[in-house]
């Protein structure tokens, strides 16, 4: 978005820069044009003498980097429908849905998203429309279509490959179309013709895809719902592992510390999508206040809740073994809708599994930006970065729920009109 130029000085009760250090009390952010010029305590940050400065004073609020959602599906509807059904909608409808989601997520405080898979060219078209000024949305880091095996997870979005040669060809085609990274589904998933408990591509195929992507300077993120798939992805050289629980083919979880250590050693990020399943549980628990849940619904709530302590312990081990968890909502997949406070709920989930509030914030700002290879531009409030700024009521470094209290969103130095309908 074009900025109206000039200087803006944001003063706030505290500034969180996204790097994880203690908040700067009575802090300030100086913006020049669409970039951050300086960040620090109020007395240390001033505009050059004589310059015209527009001041934004947030006496009791916290200022932090615009959120970076490391995993979205912009074309999703979030009403529980399976991807197999979603993909039967025409591209025009999916593009309209993507525009609606992009707007809603921006208004919710998310100024960058990494889209991990859409049908055909829908998200690329959305970006073109945003550049043309037809609609508004966060900065888009796009995979275009995920690369899948025949019948594999998300193969219905339009790109399948078999063998290392086709894998490289798929990368080249996507790069030609303008994607920013490569999403590969290294295991099956919810796609009906896929097998979630088994790997999809061979390690050699993933390695060819990753090698070709890296040749063009873009990164690779791999969907992995079992241990063997993770191992293929890690050995194949991907940069982010998505979901990433150590499931055996029989569905049991057998934690493999060496795999985590290998990820840590290779600086491979993990996007655990913790809230994805919990969102539905929350919805059911809310419904239970007005009607009896069906047996099936009650069973899924009970199962989730009974597993929770185990899950927390699992993620504690992953973190203890050095893997960096980054926040990415996976909305609007299944029942999880973009916009509202959806990404805040994933960040909250990171705090619920044991991160401090500040660590959780970092997982949804600096580290999700690092994982998306856009840390040079966004994710922290530092001189030279894009002036994407979130203002919230309260102090999220004490209670991460405060991230839900969005007061203002700056995108490229300009306040977003969050009630704009046109």
């Amino acid at each position, binding site marked *: 978005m074009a900025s109206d130029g000039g200087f803006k000085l944001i003063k706030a009760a505290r500034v969180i820069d996204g790097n994880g250090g203690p908040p700067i009390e009575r802090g300030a952010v100086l913006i020049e044009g669409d970039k951050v010029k300086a960040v620090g305590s109020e007395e240390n940050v001033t505009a050059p003498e004589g310059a015209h400065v527009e001041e934004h004073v947030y006496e009791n609020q916290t200022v932090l980097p615009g959120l970076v959602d490391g995993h979205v599906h912009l074309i999703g509807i979030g009403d529980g429908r399976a991807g197999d059904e979603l993909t039967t909608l025409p591209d025009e409808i999916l593009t*309209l849905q993507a525009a609606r989601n992009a707007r809603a997520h921006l208004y919710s405080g998310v100024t960058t998203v990494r889209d991990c898979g859409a049908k055909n060219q829908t998200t690329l078209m959305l970006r073109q429309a945003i550049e043309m000024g037809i609609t508004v949305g966060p900065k888009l880091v796009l995979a275009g279509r995920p690369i899948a095996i025949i019948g594999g997870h998300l193969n219905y979005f339009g790109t399948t490959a078999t063998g290392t040669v086709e894998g490289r060809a798929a990368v080249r085609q996507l790069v030609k179309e303008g994607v920013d990274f490569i999403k590969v589904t290294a295991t099956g998933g919810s796609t009906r013709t896929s097998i979630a408990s088994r790997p999809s591509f061979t390690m050699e195929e993933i390695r060819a895809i990753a090698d070709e992507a890296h040749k063009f300077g873009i990164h690779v993120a791999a969907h992995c719902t079992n241990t063997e798939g993770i191992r293929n992805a890690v050995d194949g050289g991907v940069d982010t592992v998505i979901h990433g629980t150590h499931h055996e083919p029989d569905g049991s979880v057998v934690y493999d510390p060496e795999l985590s250590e290998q990820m840590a050693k290779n600086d491979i990020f993990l996007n655990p999508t913790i809230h994805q399943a919990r969102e539905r549980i929350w919805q059911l628990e809310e419904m239970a206040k007005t009607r009896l849940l069906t047996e099936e619904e009650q069973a899924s709530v009970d199962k989730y809740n009974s597993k929770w302590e185990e899950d927390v312990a699992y993620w504690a081990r992953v973190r203890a073994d050095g893997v960096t968890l980054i926040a990415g909502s996976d909305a609007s997949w299944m029942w999880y809708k973009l916009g509202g406070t959806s990404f805040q709920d994933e960040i909250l989930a990171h705090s619920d599994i044991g991160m401090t509030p500040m660590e959780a914030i970092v997982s949804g700002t600096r580290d999700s930006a690092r994982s998306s290879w856009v840390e040079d531009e966004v994710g922290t409030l530092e001189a030279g970065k894009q002036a994407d700024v979130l203002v919230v009521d309260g102090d999220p470094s004490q209670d991460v729920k405060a991230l839900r209290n969005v007061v203002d969103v700056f995108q490229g130095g300009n306040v977003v009109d969050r009630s704009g309908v046109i």
Partner: protein
Amino acid sequence: MTGGRGSHTLIRAGRLIDGLGGPPIERAAILIQDSTILAVGREQDVSAPEGAPVKNLDYSDKTVMPGMVDCHTHHNGFGDGRAGDDLATLPDEILVLKSARNARTSLLTGVTTFRENGPKNVTMLRLRDAIRDGREIGPRMVLCGRPVAIIGGHMDYMGSPATGPVAGRAMVRQLVKEGADYIKITATGGSTRTSFPMLPSFNVDELSAIVDEAHKFGKLTATHCSSTQGIINSLDAGVDMIIHCIFKDADGTDRFREDVAERIGNRGAFVNPTLHVPRSTIWALEHKKADTGLTPAEQSKLDDQSRQFESRMEDARRLTDMGLKLITGSDSSWGDYMLGNTMYETECLTMAGLSNMKGLQSVTGEAAKALGVDDEVGTLEPGKQADVIAMPGNPDEDLNALWNVTDVMLAGKLIDRGSTAPIAATRQHVPHSHG
């Protein structure tokens, strides 16, 4: 009055214009049940059924009138001067996103029904699907699907060329199958680079077949006519609305044809003169002249458009004097005319001789008749859909009141218009030289 079930809304209005042409009712009220108007009248004569819960809307300091009906729009368009030939090169996904934005602009500026005259492929049909599914907001739509054109003819790039009566009928069947509500035909060339605006496009046997097939399905027809022979052919074929209705001979000479105009009147066809389109180009050039100056080519375009506008206005006055049925169809966003500015076309019609009240009818009750949707919308009467707009001031005295629409109700539901700045920004302003 019988109340019945459902949720009731009672609107109190300082002044009510019902779209039927009578004098405004002062201190009026509208009673609405769900999406339908139950009663309209003086405040003391309209009340909610006793005991029923009622939502009250107080517009006692405002005028309320039917939501506007724009009989001619291009929601794919940008209105930034780009040619249709260039517009049509954009991908469908981009066009549908632009259409969604334009549809919101239409609705939020008070247009609750529009006819769409020339979108590409299935873009508008898809947008309507998205609105029906609740994924988007937008006005009611009367869609053509795509305009039917000859090969190389005006808007053939939108995707529906046909040759011969048989292909013409097949095209109508295809469009109806896809969900078209009426059939738009380009009976002459137009701005399309490969077309000839001064010459007819389809032959009469082709036009007749298309019109006959449309009428068979109960669908209305409308023809784009940039020159006289196209109007004559359209009348021979029994078309229901003449668009542009430009009286020009094949050599480009302006020559009003009273005999042809009489035939339009006798047929009872509606005329959509699209007067503001040339004026929008004049304004765009004058804005540019004031800002940066004009090239000689632009200056000559300005002079030409000014002559065209005068000639078109003169003809429109004649048509008005003859009692023909002129309705508001903005033709935006086409040329330099952007959606959100429907009022300018109504204003042109009043400059051509319609009273303000007749002008308001041309964008409400009469417009709905022209589109064949008057059983549902266009006036505030019992049984009609509750499409209502409210504004300070009195548009019967000053049409400019239409710029200040504050509230838009569609099917009994108030639309959340969000912040007003982006809505205000859609207004195209009169150059100072016209101030």
